[in-house]
């Protein structure tokens, strides 16, 4: 058995897993505070990455300017999406809301294809990429950067929800909307903030991945990977989404390893998380950290 390769794959899994965790947190943030299952989460990555690419390539903006500009755009985009599309859906059956987010996903997917084409395009070189030696393994500095950014995002989420006024208001709204309103919290603002934060952080993840792998519609696949992650971690648990992300990230790499060594089924990297998803649903339908009484769809 090739332990060195296995170790390398586990490290890859952890790196990609933290990214899954970040995207899953964004998904959970929306689900927890607005009870919307956002099937367009992956498109947020796509839109963010393309917007940043466009600003940097077409307008030749420096990264330090194009990047914050992209994030600012995503704030506006997230709020607009909530206010224009999702707010009128409040009180509609959950299945209608799901249909709407699936529709959004298809629409943005097509729109991005139309605007930017279907080939993978690479970002201008923003940071020097070198190979770093960690415990005898070669890891690209870009991966380390992506991991550092992911961890920073997670820490920021933690402090946001634990100490900030808006973060507490979001948790209160997630717990009991009527109580939140009795405290003077505007639920409308909380909903808009949830979508804005989710859009910005997803875009950040999209840009990070885009800088490593190039920008293409493959980015939106992260939005689908989010489902095994959040089902494992629990649909409404932020902590669960981080741990779920790491587990799924490692799982798919190890599955790939097992496949190449012994099984030879092919494509296990892509499929394994979804097998896991089905098994989790059978044995632990609320995930590792999910609240028991939430409705399953």
């Amino acid at each position, binding site marked *: 058995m090739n332990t060195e390769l296995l170790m390398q794959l586990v490290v890859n899994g952890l790196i990609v897993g933290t990214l899954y965790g970040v995207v899953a947190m964004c998904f959970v943030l929306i689900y927890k505070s607005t009870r919307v299952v956002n099937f367009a989460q992956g498109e947020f990555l796509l839109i963010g990455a393309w917007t940043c690419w466009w600003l940097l390539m077409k307008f030749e903006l420096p990264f330090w300017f194009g990047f914050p500009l992209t994030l600012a755009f995503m704030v506006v985009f997230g709020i607009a999406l909530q206010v224009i599309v999702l707010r009128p859906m409040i009180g509609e059956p959950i299945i209608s809301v799901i249909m709407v987010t699936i529709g959004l996903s298809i629409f943005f997917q097509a729109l991005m294809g139309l605007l930017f084409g279907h080939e993978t395009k690479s970002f201008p070189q923003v940071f020097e990429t070198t190979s770093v030696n960690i415990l005898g393994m070669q890891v690209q500095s870009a991966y380390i950067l992506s991991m550092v950014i992911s961890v920073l995002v997670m820490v920021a989420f933690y402090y946001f929800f634990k100490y900030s*006024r808006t973060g*507490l*208001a979001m*948790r*209160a709204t997630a*717990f*009991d*909307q*009527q*109580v939140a*309103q*009795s*405290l*003077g*919290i*505007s639920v409308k603002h909380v909903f808009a903030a949830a979508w804005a934060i989710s859009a910005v952080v997803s875009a950040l993840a999209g840009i990070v991945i885009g800088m490593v792998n190039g920008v293409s519609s493959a980015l939106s696949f992260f939005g689908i990977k989010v489902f095994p992650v959040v089902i494992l971690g629990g649909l409404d648990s932020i902590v669960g989404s981080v741990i779920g992300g790491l587990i799924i990230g490692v799982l798919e790499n190890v599955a790939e390893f097992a496949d190449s060594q012994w099984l030879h089924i092919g494509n296990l990297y892509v499929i394994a998380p979804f097998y896991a998803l089905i098994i989790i649903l059978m044995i632990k339908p609320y995930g590792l950290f999910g609240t028991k009484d939430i409705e399953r769809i």
Partner: protein
Amino acid sequence: MSHTATQSEAAEPLLTLNNIEVVYDEVILVLRGVSLEVPKGEIVTLLGPNGAGKSTTLKAISGLLGTEDGKVTRGSVQFMGEDIANSAPEQIVRQGIFQVMEGRRIIGDMTVHENLRLGAYTRKDKEINSDIEMVYNYFPRLKERTGLAGYLSGGEQQMLAIGRAMMARPKLMLLDEPSMGLSPLLVKEVFNIIQTINREQGITMLLVEQNANIALKHATYGYVMESGKIVMDGTRDELMNNEDIKQFYLGGGEERRSFKNLKSYKRRKRWL
């Protein structure tokens, strides 16, 4: 009503409900012309049986009706000279009215401290932390509870709900059945603290209760509501000595009432 006369001589009441009508889901008429006054600095109680419309009255004042598809369709809610009927709850909280909802409704997956901080959501001043200490002074046992608020006992949750309301620094606190589900000893303790807060912090209170005994002990004035209408009102002493109140709310009236009397009482009520 003699009450109204003495009040208007003194000062404008802090809160005046003027013949309000409340409808849920556009068709269910629940309040049919409710009028009441809450003078500044006092504790006024609103009594009545299940389903009378007490909670609905409080929600009409705090604006929470809107969250249940309810609406004030007639009359006015005057608070400090302004009509606040059907305003958004977040606006009403900012104007100084805070409702402690029935069943306490603390945020179970947050700590005591976080719940208190959220009570001050509408404030941006620097005194929030010192106010948290003030709340702990009124409810010392809350300070010892460091876990999640969901694990607090019923009495502690009620204390937290009241403490959280204090954090908003309201002018008027609406309390919905604070005695619910508490042991008699705890009810006494909670009501004593409510009275202390009223006196020391100058917070005016409108107190909904089914436990008329304890409510009338602490209130200066009371209203009795049945089927969406005020059927009686009076000062604490007037109500405590009223035979009907004794019979139906305080328990253990002087003489057993005959069925005939009971019917006459009901008939009289209808015309009030």
